[in-house]
């Protein structure tokens, strides 16, 4: 128990941050309120530094987690991207209120300021993702997933004072609650099929069942409900319907958050859940891969997700909506890694999360940097001819889009390459061919994001677009754009970092055979 608590130190530290931030947000002094993002960054950086110190060999072996090293990588990743996302959020909440307060027209009212709460939710959601990595039982997984999602619902609602944001919140919340009920029922069935809720024990029971002739029907249905329910967080078809509307309705910084944080939580949770059944192949001699039913389901989902995501993006005139669909498509690519399984598929997923986090945040950062008449920009036409007035931002957008296409040598290429290699290595060539075709389709719409800012001429409409008075979103865009270019040079070491995650479980989980002291031996008809 104590060993597990050690791993929770970053989360506890961030929770201290939540308290500090929410109290500071109530301060009468404007300076304190303006310092909030800085404080958030300090706490995130602190967690980033603490995390690697905690993962010592001895604690890892004592904790008995399913994938102990997962936490180290994912927590650091989320904290690092979290800092960027914080930059995006600077000056987003209470803009009008703060302006009127500083002009002296409105008196300070602690009830009306939301900034502290916003950043508390921001950090709570990040805590949620970090906790998902530590999950060793279904209860913990359920709670951590809820802690990831619930704050995001509110963040969407308060992200901007428009009806669109509230509509987005309604859709996100209600559909999210439905999906939560789905995977909860799945959890119940998993528990029913095994009698255990600890993931490591689930894994042992499943291995025993598999050795005795295949997984229980209850386990299969439970797994499908669980996987599809959780895939809501990743916006995987058919659980993707909310994505476009919600991403469009929320303010760009929050959209960037939604596209990364819950998606990471979903991917990590899926890794954990699928690890319990393992990729060791439950059917046939020496066959690799997930149980056939789960594999088929994931296959269908991956193909549909890539295809519908990409063709959905083609028609969009709104940059945010286009990025929403592209985010769906990227979830499809991530599913390839999940299908391929350890070690490469999972490493590739984790590496891709990093790549996706950086490049997608870069694209949203550019969108978040501009406004027109006090409203944030949405349509593609607003980006036309950006080069003339903001060349750096135009280049950042082009780099982000190029990387999202998977253009060598940018970051997205390395990520996609590794995913595809993993998929091919696992023998899913048809899937990779479909992914390749989709990747080609995606070039059509991403090239708009390259072409419009750089090649096109400004229009009267796009002339009215101006940079937001806050400089930080632009800094975030530049930092991530540089990351898109520079990080591929370190692809090797980053890959190593993500490889470390799954090294341990290869030897343990994959070779589990029927343990002699299994209390129950399900008989197969």
């Amino acid at each position, binding site marked *: 128990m104590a060993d*597990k608590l050690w791993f929770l130190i970053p989360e506890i530290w961030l929770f201290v941050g939540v308290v500090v931030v929410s109290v500071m947000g109530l301060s009468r002094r404007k300076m304190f309120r303006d310092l909030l993002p800085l404080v958030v960054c300090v706490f995130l950086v602190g967690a980033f530094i603490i995390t690697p110190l905690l993962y010592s060999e001895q604690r890892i072996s004592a904790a008995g987690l399913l994938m102990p090293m997962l936490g180290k990588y994912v927590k650091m990743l989320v904290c690092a991207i979290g800092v960027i996302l914080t930059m995006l959020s600077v000056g987003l909440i209470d803009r009008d209120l703060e302006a009127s307060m500083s002009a002296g027209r409105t008196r300070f009212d602690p009830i009306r300021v939301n900034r502290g709460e916003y950043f508390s939710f921001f950090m709570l959601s990040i805590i949620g993702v970090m906790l998902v990595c530590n999950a060793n039982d279904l209860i913990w997984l359920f709670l951590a997933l809820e802690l990831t999602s619930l704050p995001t619902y*509110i963040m969407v609602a308060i992200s901007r004072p428009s009806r669109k944001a509230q509509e987005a919140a309604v859709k996100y919340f209600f559909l999210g609650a439905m999906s939560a009920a789905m995977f909860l029922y799945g959890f119940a069935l998993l528990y029913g099929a095994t009698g255990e809720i600890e993931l490591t024990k689930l894994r042992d029971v499943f291995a025993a069942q598999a050795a005795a002739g295949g997984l229980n029907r209850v386990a299969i249905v439970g797994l499908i409900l669980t996987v599809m329910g959780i895939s809501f967080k990743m916006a995987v078809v058919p659980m993707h319907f909310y994505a476009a509307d919600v991403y469009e309705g929320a303010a760009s910084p929050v959209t960037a958050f939604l596209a990364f944080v819950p998606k990471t939580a979903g991917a990590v949770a899926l890794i954990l859940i699928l690890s319990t059944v393992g990729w060791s192949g439950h059917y046939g001699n020496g066959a690799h891969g997930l149980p056939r039913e789960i594999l088929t389901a994931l296959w269908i989902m991956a193909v549909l997700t890539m295809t519908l995501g990409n063709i959905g993006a083609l028609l969009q005139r709104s940059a945010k909506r286009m990025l929403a669909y592209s985010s769906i498509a990227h979830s499809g690519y991530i599913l390839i890694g999940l299908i391929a399984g350890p070690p490469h598929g999972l490493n590739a997923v984790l590496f891709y999360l990093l790549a996706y986090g950086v490049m997608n945040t870069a694209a949203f950062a550019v969108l978040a940097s501009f406004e027109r008449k006090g409203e944030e920009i949405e349509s593609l036409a607003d980006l036309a001819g950006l080069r003339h007035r903001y060349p*750096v931002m135009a280049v950042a957008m082009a780099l982000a889009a190029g990387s999202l296409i998977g253009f060598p040598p940018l970051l997205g290429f390395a990520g996609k390459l590794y995913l595809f290699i993993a998929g091919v290595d696992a023998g899913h060539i048809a899937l990779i061919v479909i992914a390749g075709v989709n990747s080609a389709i995606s070039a059509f719409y991403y090239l708009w994001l390259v072409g419009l800012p750089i090649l096109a001429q400004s229009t009267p409409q796009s002339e009215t677009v101006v940079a937001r008075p806050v400089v930080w979103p632009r800094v975030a865009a530049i930092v991530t754009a540089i990351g898109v270019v520079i990080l591929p040079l370190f692809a090797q070491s980053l890959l190593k970092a993500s490889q470390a995650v799954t090294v341990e479980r290869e030897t343990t989980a994959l070779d589990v055979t029927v343990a002699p002291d299994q209390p129950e031996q399900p008989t197969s008809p």
Partner: protein
Amino acid sequence: MASSIFYLACVLGIATAALYLLVRPGARALKLGATVVGLGALGWLVQQFVGMLGGDDPSDRPGVIFFIFSLIAVASAVRMITHSRPIYSALYFVMVVLSSAGLFLLLEAEFMAFALIIVYAGAILITYLFVLMLAQQAPGEDGTVQSPEYDRIPREPAAGVAVGFVMLALLSEMIFSGVSTELTEPPVAAAEVAAWRELEQMPGQLRRELIRVDPDLEESFPADQTPAKFSRIDEQGGIFTVGPLGSSGQTYEVSLPHSAMPQNIQRVGWALVHQYPASLELAGVILLMAMFGAVVLAQRQIELSDDEKLEAARAHQSARDAANGGDA
């Protein structure tokens, strides 16, 4: 196999058709007919399920009670989603909760049964009712309350019921081929050994039970010393022989009665604080977050008034003019 699935599909089909007619807006007579058909289908199911209603065997009693509770639960649930007044829906949901609590009792989960009633029926549902009252329509001129159109006419009745049917088909297939045949009950002995082990871990609990069986042991196990531990547990003739007990080197052979095993409530509490204390804390964080969220969402002025907005726009303009000197 095939015929039985066909059989079940027919009955479920009739039931869902009836449900569809109930959900759909329509003439009262049609609804009445649908209710009759639906009740008929349900009645057939009941008749199939409990052919032995009124049997004298006391071991059948839970069966009867189970059917009563689950019928109430299902019927209330159906009424809940078909009733055109939200208040009644909420009240029907209370019925569902109460009958589920009854099912929990049958499943020997007494604590959860009462917790369910207190938390769900007592707290959560009351909140729902409050909000429903807040949003209550004023009575019409003739004093009757006319439900708004969105409460009377469902959105996607056909598609919804079809989806439900497919889902139910999935789950019932799972139940008939998975739960009833593939799941095997764990050996009772193993479960009981696990229960004894839990007793051993609970602080002071084993000692108390030992003293209750044999008061002489009180001196052998002083309260401030190393807690008692089992060194062997066997089962013979329904009586558990526990021992030898290892503490301060000495062992005793003691037979503990069945009643000494930890109670359900004890086991739940123990699991909660011993196995999942961190989850408990996490649940606390979620509740705190929910409180924050509710405060933020429900506060009255999320928006500025119009003149405030106008002023803000002007302030923005000037700030922008000042900031627009440079790029990036």
